[in-house]
């Protein structure tokens, strides 16, 4: 079977102006969204408490809210969680300073009075103090920034500076696109999202590596043609690999998204978006950066 016929020549590089404009607009939009509305932070980063409840039969969010009214929980948010019909709910509390051990017991007692002690269970409690939340937030951002820069340095070291810069810009693009998609889909940002972003950084740079490797090889082989033509040839030659590899990764990611459960779903979602973006950015962002750099060098000379 062949997806891409040998000898295919799609003039990718000639779309680069449109692509760069489009991506710049998207990235700016994400940045604006990030600094105005801000991301929806999970307890890992904002501090607070999450309690996951599972009921044996159907109850509604207002039922739970009414039941818990007697113990004043402060700013709380109750929502459906997990699959349809699993009767799971998530209570999110802003309050962070709860007396040791008191909260779970309180909720348990109150709900037992209302629904009966064996009609529900507390499946999960996560509490993160404000100081830890701040610390995790800082470390999360730093780890994404550091790994992005490391990738750039690695590519610079293995190839050339302009390839490294192209890779870094492509990675920033992928991270921003993923962050934007997560915000639009109303997913919370927590530690698993940071894990997803780092995986995207590590995986998306693979495409860049493969194409850069091919560009370098073709630069040695084909001397007469312009760099633009070489870049284009290289993208086309590696196109079927790009599609296949990302396709295989997407298959397992869709499996994780649909079957992996509610904890893994945001993680899988982020990776799906990031991997798509990774392919796009390697072809339409990293390559133009390399070409742009080349033109500047020529002009200088």
């Amino acid at each position, binding site marked *: *079977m062949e997806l891409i016929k*040998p000898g295919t020549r799609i003039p990718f590089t000639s779309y680069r102006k449109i692509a760069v404009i489009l991506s710049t607009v998207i990235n700016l939009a994400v940045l604006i969204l990030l600094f105005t509305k801000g991301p929806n932070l999970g307890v890992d980063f904002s501090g607070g408490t999450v309690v*996951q409840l*599972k009921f044996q039969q159907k109850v509604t969010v207002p039922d739970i809210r009414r039941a818990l009214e007697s113990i004043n929980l402060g700013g709380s948010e109750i929502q459906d969680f997990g699959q349809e019909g699993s009767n799971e709910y998530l209570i999110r509390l802003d309050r962070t300073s709860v*007396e*040791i*051990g008191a909260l*779970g017991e309180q909720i348990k007692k109150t709900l037992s009075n209302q629904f009966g002690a064996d009609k529900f269970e507390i*499946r*999960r*409690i*996560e*509490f*993160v*103090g404000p*100081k*830890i939340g701040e610390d*995790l937030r800082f470390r999360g951002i*730093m*780890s994404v920034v*550091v*790994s992005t820069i*490391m*990738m750039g340095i*690695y*590519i610079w070291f*293995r190839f050339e500076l302009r390839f490294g810069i192209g890779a870094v810009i492509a990675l920033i693009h992928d991270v921003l696109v993923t962050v934007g998609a997560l915000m639009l889909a109303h997913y919370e940002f927590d*530690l*698993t999202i*940071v*894990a997803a972003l*780092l*995986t995207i950084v*590590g*995986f998306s*740079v*693979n495409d860049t*590596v*493969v194409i850069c*490797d091919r560009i370098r090889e073709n630069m040695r082989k084909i001397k007469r043609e312009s760099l633009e033509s070489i870049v284009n040839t290289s993208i086309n*030659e590696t196109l079927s*690999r790009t599609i*296949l*590899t990302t*396709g*295989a*990764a997407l*298959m*397992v990611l*869709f*499996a*994780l998204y*649909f*079957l*992996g*459960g509610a*904890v*893994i779903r945001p*993680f*899988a979602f982020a990776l799906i978006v990031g991997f798509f973006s990774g392919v796009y950015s390697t072809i339409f962002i990293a390559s133009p950066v390399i070409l742009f750099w080349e033109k500047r060098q020529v002009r200088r000379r």
Partner: protein
Amino acid sequence: MRRAALTRLALFIIATVGALLYLTPTFFHNLPSWWSNFLPAERIHLGLDLQGGSHLVLEVKVDKAIENNLERIRADLTNMLRDRGISGVSVEKVQGTQLQVKVPAASVERVRALLTSDFANLSVVNTQTAAGTTDFFLSLSKEELRSLRDYAVDQSLETIRNRIDQFGVSEPIIQRQGQQDILIQLPGIQDPERAKQIIGKTALLEFKLVDDAANPEEAVRSGPPPGRQILYGYAGRGEGGAGADKTPYVLEARTLMTGETITDARVRPSSQLQGPYVELVLNSTGARLFEQITAANVKRRMAIVLDNRVYSAPVIQERIGGGRASITGSFDIKEARDLAIVLRAGALPAPVEIVEERTVGPSLGQDSIRQGIASFIVGGALVVIFMVAYYKGAGLVAVVAVIFNILYMMAILAGFEAVLTLPGIAGIVLTIGMAVDANVLINERIREELRAGRTVRSAIEAGYQNALPAILDSNVTTFLSGVILFQFGTGPIKGFAVTLCVGILTTVITAVYLTRTYYDLRISARKLERISI
């Protein structure tokens, strides 16, 4: 070439047998006893998110420990000054971490001598002389502060370990984390709320005299008289939440005795007269002290105070010898048992606060495992179908390599006794999807070389050779981000980083070298005319 390929094949066979041996303890729990004598007994452990349990991070309030220490030094100094007949000196705590000693001019030299001889751990940071008095400002030295902090954390760790041991949790993890935090993991715990109460109780037991001359209501309104303090006793259950009946007591602030000398604490069942109570056994020093105190205060009331809460304040009927005391109060048998645990294990040197908690119930863990396995099977099947459909024979080779990849990966995880978490399972599933990349790169190259008119043999050789740099580079980059993730992450996320990194190592080995060995063997067996790719 055949020789080299056969050697590699032998290595892979050995590795596979080794991997199977390493995985056996993970999948079969009831192994005969001879197994662990000369075969690996390590197994993959399930993370708290999969088997259920509590992950807690406690912060030890070390500043409180330092304050307590300073208070003790202040008392010592005051006593010492009195013993030596140096009068007119006042010792106050200022700014939380300093002592201010006001000395009349006549006694300055004697006080200075006392400070240098008996309080060497204090350093004089400032001296002010005005209107016939000299003020010494004393503070603990930097090293002293550091060792106090360390001691507070280490001692808390030890105490908490004792409490958890007595509470009965299998394979708990209790370790220091950073400057002043303690990490606790309690796998498979049934009642996390109760465990938290046992762990978090300071359990500072104090015996204080009740001032019967003072009127408690009056004292609550206008503040306690000098040298007195007001503490409350709570009727009924609960940790003194809203609505509980509280009774104020006016106590002499001086602590006659603390719980330090307790050697044992036992629950005594309830009788008709009273509910269950906790009987304390004191060591010989404690017994003597207790006897003296009771003898000196017959007919007075002595309050038994635990963490600033008055449990009871019985009247001392007579001198009590024999080193036994009891704590009564309105608690049920479970509370009494927990109280006995914390009293036996000793008090925490400083209060602790939970700064992070992640508790997962066992049923959620079961669900997560099921979901993890489901996505593993479905994701894996999709990749198998996809690879075989696209590359036929070569796809099948790649799929077999992926199976060995998973096998080696699990074996390495077992060998290092790694903890498998839900994100870790996601990492394994993701590895299946990413591992085929190497084979895709190789196969695409081989196809290219075949199209360029090479023979099968040289196409395979060129394919592997040309694809290798890109494969190595791309795996190194993913590995790097995995390492950074490991540095950054906590608990479950670390599990993901570990599977990601181990997966990359095994991917390079299986996807490149295992498949290469297969092709080399086929090529060397006979002249290969066609290849299914």
